[in-house]
Each structure stands twice: as structure tokens, then as C-alpha cells.
């Protein structure tokens, strides 16, 4: 087939997804997206409308597909980590964490206690930053513009902390298999403590602006209802699942990085509507702050990288004195390290839900297969029936409440 004789998309391909009235023209087919401010990225929704009521919603993704899974297969284990940042660009540290945990499991690497605690601090800071974006865009979609601006202001503080430690605001690649890239600077603890002291007042401000605001409540209560059974059958996870009354959080259920040592609650709401998911995330702000505070109090001194020189590069200071270190450095930077044959499914609780990495190695220096089970991919499917019977304006609230990231979906 040449490029010029491309087939046009006709309704034939989608006929089984729309009702019969769409063919006669009694209902209206409308494209929402891919360029639409309320679809949170390049998501296209094909809507079948009767007046303003949605009869069918057909999500169409793939506009942000960058072939990350295929690219990872062509990179060494060390190089591939950089790609993981680009998956869910609001949860870069969480993606790094899943990747590092998977590689550590395959190679049997140990991680020093200090690195574990710093990982937890960053994972929770990242959760707050991601939830701030969710709150900002959810509020903006429902026409509360000041919340949007406030949230981005607070997120900036977290991004500055990340820049302080890793040199990057967003694409950090700060966690490495075996520990961290470098230790945190001395200013780190004060910066995080300042944020913990500052942020609770801000949460109160958001709650004052939204949680008891009758205009906001009218837009979110009873919209996009999902029962417990539906949520489970469709494989929902994270706040989307907990908003439907299922108490499941991977940090509690399958703890990693020492999460079992922290004392925190998992907010669960029974209603299953937009408001329930909103409340879950709002309470998670405070729970994350609790975890960060406990982690800072216990932050031990010590190394932040494993001593296994076959996988973790030697520190710069050693290179001038030790021939061994030079050899290790050269080997690691030219051909990478071999990972024993085997496969592992590593799951972490990302701000959006269950982020799983299926990593398989054939014994060589490159991953044989990396499959990302991402929460947004799973959750976008829900729109096809969650939106049914609602107004177009309510669909915007539903999209916001499920909190999708298209980089996470299309990979």
C-alpha cells in the first residue's frame, strides 16, 4: 500500500460500538480531543450524544505512543532507567523505584537503610506533587481557577527539592539499582521540614475552597458511580479502587522499601463517585506528610549505595587510587552488567494506582522484555461505561477524578 491510497476511517469500523441511531443521524457523534484542555493530554474520546447526554463513549489512545518498551529492549539495564522517567511524567520517582526494585530483585542487590528511607521520602513527595496536579486540573475543569494556581505554586516547592538533590526538576533518575545516585545535600532535611510545616495550612485552604463549596459539590456528588464489584472486575487500583470502598494499598498489602515500618492510614470511601475519589486523594496528602515526617525522624547516617562493585559503579574518589575501581568503572560504562536469567513482576503504589513492571532477563546485559502495567491504561477503559447517561460537562469531572496521564497509558 502506498502512502497516498490510505483508507479513510469510516463509521464501519466502529459500528459495533455505537447505537443504531448514530447511523440514521438521530444521535450525534462528536470528537472530544485529542487536542482538548480537559482530556489531560492527548486522549481522544468519540462521544455519541443524544442532545447533551452521552449514550456511548469510545476512548481512543496511542497519540503519545513512543515505543518505550521496545526501546528498553535495546538498551542496557543502566541506560533503560532513563526511559522510565518518561512513562508517567508526574510520577518519575515512582517509576524509577519500580524499575530499581525489579532489577534489585533479579540481581539480589542489597540497598542500604539510608537509601531506603530517602526513597520513601521522595516517593511520598512525588505522590503529593502528583496529587497536586490532579487537584489543580480537576478544579480547573470544574471552573475553580484559583485552586489551579495555588496547587502549582506548592508543587514548585517539591520540584525545587528534587532539583536540589538530583539536579533535575522532573526527569530525575535519582534512584539507581543498589541505592541512590548520590547522597542528599545538607540543605535537604531543612527544605523538607519547611515544606511539612507549610503544607497542612494549604490543604486546609484547598478544602475550604472546594470540599464545602456547594457549587463544587453539585458537580461531583453522584457523578460517575462505580460499584465495588465493577471496580474489581475491571482491575481498578489506587484511589479509584479505594473510592469504591475496597481497602487495598500496595504499600500496606505488599510492602516494599520498608513501608511496613511507617504508621499511616489508607483512606477509603464507599460511595464510588467523583466525590469519593476526591476525598481519598485529599486525605492521602496528610498521610503522605505523616510518612515523610516519620522517615525524616528516623533517617540514619551511612552509605547510600550498595558495595557490590559488579553492578554499582565505584565512587569518583576511588578512581584515582584503585585499579580495580577503574576496571569496574570501564566495564560498567562500556558493556553494563549481566543480570541473571529470570523474570519478576514488581508492583508499587503509584499516585494513580498499581504500577507494575514485568521485567525479564535472558542473562545478558539488556532487558529481554520490560512490560509496564500502568494504572492509567487500565483506568481509561472505565470511561466507556462510567460516562454513560451523564452530561458532557460531567464527563470532564469523571476524567479528572480518575486522574489519568497519557504518557503512562501509551508508553
Amino acid at each position: 500500500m502506498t502512502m497516498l491510497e490510505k483508507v479513510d476511517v469510516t463509521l464501519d469500523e466502529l459500528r459495533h460500538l455505537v447505537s443504531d441511531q448514530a447511523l440514521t443521524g438521530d444521535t450525534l457523534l462528536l470528537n472530544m480531543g485529542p487536542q482538548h484542555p480537559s482530556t489531560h493530554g492527548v486522549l481522544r474520546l468519540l462521544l455519541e450524544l443524544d442532545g447533551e447526554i452521552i449514550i456511548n463513549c469510545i476512548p481512543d489512545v496511542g497519540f503519545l505512543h513512543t515505543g518505550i518498551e521496545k526501546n528498553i529492549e535495546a538498551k542496557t539495564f543502566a541506560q533503560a532507567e532513563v526511559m522510565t522517567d518518561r512513562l508517567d511524567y508526574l510520577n518519575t520517582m515512582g517509576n524509577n523505584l519500580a524499575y530499581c526494585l525489579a532489577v534489585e530483585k533479579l540481581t539480589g542487590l542489597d540497598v542500604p537503610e539510608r537509601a531506603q528511607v530517602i526513597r520513601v521520602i521522595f516517593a511520598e513527595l512525588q505522590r503529593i506533587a502528583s496529587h497536586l496536579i490532579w487537584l489543580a486540573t480537576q478544579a480547573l475543569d470544574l471552573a475553580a481557577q484559583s485552586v489551579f494556581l495555588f496547587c502549582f505554586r506548592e508543587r514548585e516547592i517539591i520540584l525545587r527539592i528534587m532539583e536540589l538533590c538530583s539536579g533535575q526538576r522532573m526527569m530525575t533518575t535519582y534512584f539507581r539499582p543498589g541505592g541512590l545516585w548520590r547522597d542528599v545535600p545538607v540543605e535537604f532535611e531543612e527544605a523538607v521540614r519547611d515544606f511539612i510545616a507549610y503544607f497542612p495550612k494549604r490543604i486546609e485552604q484547598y478544602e475550604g475552597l472546594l470540599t464545602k463549596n456547594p457549587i463544587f459539590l453539585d458537580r461531583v456528588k453522584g457523578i460517575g458511580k462505580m460499584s465495588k464489584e465493577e471496580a474489581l472486575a475491571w482491575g481498578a487500583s489506587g484511589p479509584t479502587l479505594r473510592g469504591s470502598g475496597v481497602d487495598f494499598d500496595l504499600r500496606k498489602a505488599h510492602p516494599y522499601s520498608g513501608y511496613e515500618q511507617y504508621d499511616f492510614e489508607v483512606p477509603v470511601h464507599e460511595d464510588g463517585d467523583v466525590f469519593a475519589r476526591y476525598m481519598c486523594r485529599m486525605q492521602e496528602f496528610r498521610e503522605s506528610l505523616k510518612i515523610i515526617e516519620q522517615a525524616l525522624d528516623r533517617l540514619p547516617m551511612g552509605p547510600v549505595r550498595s558495595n557490590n562493585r559488579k553492578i554499582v559503579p565505584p565512587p569518583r574518589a576511588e578512581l584515582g587510587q584503585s585499579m580495580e575501581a577503574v576496571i569496574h568503572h570501564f566495564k560498567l560504562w562500556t558493556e553494563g552488567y549481566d543480570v541473571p536469567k529470570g523474570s519478576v513482576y514488581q508492583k508499587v503504589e503509584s499516585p494513580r494506582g498499581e504500577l507494575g513492571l514485568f521485567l525479564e532477563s535472558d542473562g545478558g546485559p539488556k532487558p529481554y522484555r520490560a512490560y509496564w502495567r500502568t494504572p492509567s491504561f487500565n483506568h481509561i477503559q472505565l470511561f466507556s461505561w462510567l460516562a454513560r447517561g451523564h452530561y458532557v460537562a460531567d464527563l470532564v469531572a469523571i476524567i479528572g477524578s480518575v486522574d489519568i496521564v497519557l504518557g503512562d497509558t501509551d508508553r
Partner: protein
Amino acid sequence: MDKKLKSIAQKLAKKFDGQLDDSLEQARVIVPSGKIVELCKELRDKHDFESLTGFSVVDYHPQTEPRFHLIYQFRSIAQNIYLEVRMELNGSELLVDSVTGIYPGVNWYEREAWDMFGIQFEGHPDLRRLLMPYDWEGHPLRKDYPLGYEEVQFTFNYDEIAKRKPSPKE
């Protein structure tokens, strides 16, 4: 490993003629192709696995028997366990029963597997390409699909480059 998980995995391996692999603290049951629908029904109805959270494929090209492993990740919140089922698939078959009737959430995962690996699912309600453009040729995540280093095709030289372009072998 969790005792409950181990006993479920053993029962499953026995019933469906498979093997149990418990390396790296995970339970994996490797089963021959066929019977995936019965397996899912058994897991959902008898062993309380409410969700199929993940599904993907691994390509072992140039090995042909089996060429693919279909990897199902089952989650049971009631018992707090995860179980992995790997189904072998020969390179000549490429037709699998869809499990959308049992776990509706697997809909897009199967579409992705069709898009990326060219595996067809019998009984799937809407098997279209998901991530690649609808007129794309080939299935990119297969191991015999070239990765990059290709000339860019523009309108004026599309046909000329298409003639010498490496393409995946069917």
C-alpha cells in the same frame, strides 16, 4: 512464599497439566495453550481472584515451540496474593480464546497484544489496533521487528524506500 498461594498454584498446575516455578519469591504456573477460559473461571469462582490486573506477552523468537508466553497476572485482594500464569503459544497458532467474558478489564490488554504481537483473540468484542495507527503494518514488539535505523519516508520517496525497507517476516 505464602502457603495459600503455593497450594493454589500446585492445584492449578496439577489440574491444567502445567509446571510450577517459584523462583524469586513469586508463584508462576506455566501451562500449555488451550483451556485459558476454564483456568480463569476456576481462579475467579473457586479461588477468589477478583481481578486480572495485568496481561502481556513475551516473544522468544527464533524459538517456535513455544514462540510466545502469554503472561496473566491475577490479583486476589481477599487473600492478598498475586499469581502469575504463563501460557505457552506456538508460533504457528496465534489464536487464543479471549477472557474478556470473565474479566472485562482485560479488553485493552488483549487489544494491545494483538497490536504489538499479532496474537488474535477469539470472542473479543472489539479487536482493533490500540496504540499504533490503524493502517500500520507489522507488530512492533515482536523480536523480528526492526528497531529504528530506517530511512524516513516522505510523500515523494515513499514507494522507493518501501521496496528496500526491512520488514517483519510473517
